[in-house]
């Protein structure tokens, strides 16, 4: 009974946080791309456009959902549901940190610790292609069909290097459970260099990390691999006929997939919640320092406002940052908050790389895309796996 109540509470918290993160990820993306392109980005709704995601959600919910004529309505409505379901469910096996103890109850910061967690993620992500393929096919539109076909071909192709890149760190960790994979990366070489998979012996997994991230871009249909929705050829690709909440479902699925790929990269290659350098050298003070610096910057700009409303908004943010920094220093919260901070920091950085790449790189041509997967990434991943396997076998 206690187990069920705890699980329900955890599910509610994780669902709420994840959906908020998905909404604000879109704000972050628009802001970052805007600043890369020397624009302002969203700035009208709320201070610095911070309420823009809320406005977007209200707009998407209240819009009329248009169903084009002659579509296969069952599959047309099933597709967005499938896409968003498969994208959201994979968060259930991702561990965010160590344990929380509240009174007599101790629970892991994770919904469920499957002993085949990483395989669960792979199987769910391989099912996600149905949403996109069905959407493209059932819309009764040639652009949508082309997008759906491209997406199926692309996702099948890039799943291979992705899976092969995942296997190499698994060989070093020797387990399939995500929590145990992270635990196997604890500790430091020479006292300072963390034993994350990208630094670990016998063969540092830096190559498979790069291969994983590149295939991650393709699996989530992001630039430079966003051929399924290439605007200047296919209008909007597989979701061209979708509007209102069904469109929002695809949008959410894309961002949820991004979050999943970044979390998996963090867990497998970047040591999950283990800090970059040992606690003895003060890694626990990084989070409060960063937050304190952010608060100080906010207060400074609030006192020297560039825009009229900055005088009122920025000090508020500053106080919030100071409060968070103080929270990170409370002794009995440190064992809970520090792993969470390091996990979120690494995942957030990878998400920023996703946005950064979108603002930087142009799109591939379709034959280049397929050639790159089969002639470039696949042999590289295979070679990496062979070397890793050989060295692990030699070591044991």
């Amino acid at each position, binding site marked *: 009974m206690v187990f069920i109540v705890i699980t329900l509470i955890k599910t509610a918290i994780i669902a709420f946080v994840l959906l908020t993160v998905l909404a604000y990820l879109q704000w972050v993306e628009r802001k970052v791309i805007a600043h890369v392109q020397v624009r302002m980005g969203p700035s009208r709704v709320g201070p610095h456009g911070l309420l823009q995601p809320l406005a977007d959600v209200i707009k998407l919910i209240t819009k009329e959902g248009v169903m084009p004529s002659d579509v*296969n309505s069952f*599959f047309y409505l099933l597709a967005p549901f499938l896409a968003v379901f498969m994208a959201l469910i994979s968060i259930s096996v991702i561990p965010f940190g160590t344990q929380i103890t509240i009174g007599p109850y101790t629970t892991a910061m994770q919904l469920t610790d*499957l*002993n*085949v967690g990483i*395989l*669960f993620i*792979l*199987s769910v992500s*391989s*099912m996600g*292609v*149905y949403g996109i*393929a*069905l959407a*493209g*096919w059932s819309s009764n539109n040639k652009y949508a*069909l082309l997008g*759906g*076909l491209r997406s*199926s*071909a692309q*996702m*099948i192709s890039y*799943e291979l290097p992705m899976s092969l890149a995942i296997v190499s760190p698994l060989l070093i960790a020797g387990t*399939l459970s995500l929590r145990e994979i992270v635990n196997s990366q604890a500790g430091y070489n020479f006292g300072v260099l963390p034993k994350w998979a990208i630094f670990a012996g016998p063969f540092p997994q830096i190559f498979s990390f790069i291969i994983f991230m590149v295939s991650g871009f393709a699996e989530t249909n992001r630039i430079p691999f966003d051929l399924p929705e290439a605007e200047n050829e296919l209008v909007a690709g597989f979701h061209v006929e979708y509007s209102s909440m069904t469109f929002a479902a695809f949008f959410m699925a894309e961002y949820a997939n991004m979050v999943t790929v970044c979390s998996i990269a963090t867990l497998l290659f970047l040591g999950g919640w283990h800090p970059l350098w040992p606690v003895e050298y003060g890694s626990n003070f990084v989070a409060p320092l960063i937050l304190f610096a952010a608060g100080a910057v906010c207060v400074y700009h609030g006192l020297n406002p560039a825009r009229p409303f900055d005088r009122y908004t920025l000090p508020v943010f500053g106080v919030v940052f100071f409060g968070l920094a103080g929270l990170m220093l409370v002794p009995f919260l440190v064992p809970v908050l520090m792993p969470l901070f390091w996990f979120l920091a690494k995942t957030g950085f990878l998400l920023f790389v996703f946005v950064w790449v979108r603002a930087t790189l142009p799109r591939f041509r379709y034959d280049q895309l397929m050639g790159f997967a089969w002639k470039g990434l696949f042999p590289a991943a295979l070679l990496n796996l062979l070397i890793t396997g050989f060295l692990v076998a030699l070591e044991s």
Partner: protein
Amino acid sequence: MDLLFFIVFAGIAVVSAVNVVLQRHPIASALSLIGVMGSIAVLYLQLGAEFIAMAQVIVYAGAVMVLFVFVIMLLNAGAEVRRGRSWTAQLLGIPALAAFVGLVCWFFQRGFSNAGEVKFGNFTGGSAQSVGYALFTEYLLPFEVTSVLILVAIVGAIVLARKEMD
């Protein structure tokens, strides 16, 4: 609880399997087949074979059926047209089905009358480690032969699909 889950997912598997045949549209049939694979994966999970369950979903539902759906979309196959049954099918269909089901029941009754019931929950043969160990020790030769077989199939597909070189 175990029995409840078994009945639900076995039911889904059977209904989806029948649906594969009954559906008139190829895509609907293919999706029903995915339903069969998924519910069989759940049955594997109940037996404690997590690795087999996940491999079932990844390989069959995630890879093989995606290719099926892909090909159906590429061919743009429409809904099939039902024609009337031939008089032999109408006359003999139901009696032949009854005879077949009776024969299967009789066979199981004779062959497996002393078999115990399948135990759920304490089966320990399905972890990744035990599957891998069995594959690379006891079943090494069949495993390697299968991989060569798949290689032959790939080479054959490339030879068939290759454009003629001028």
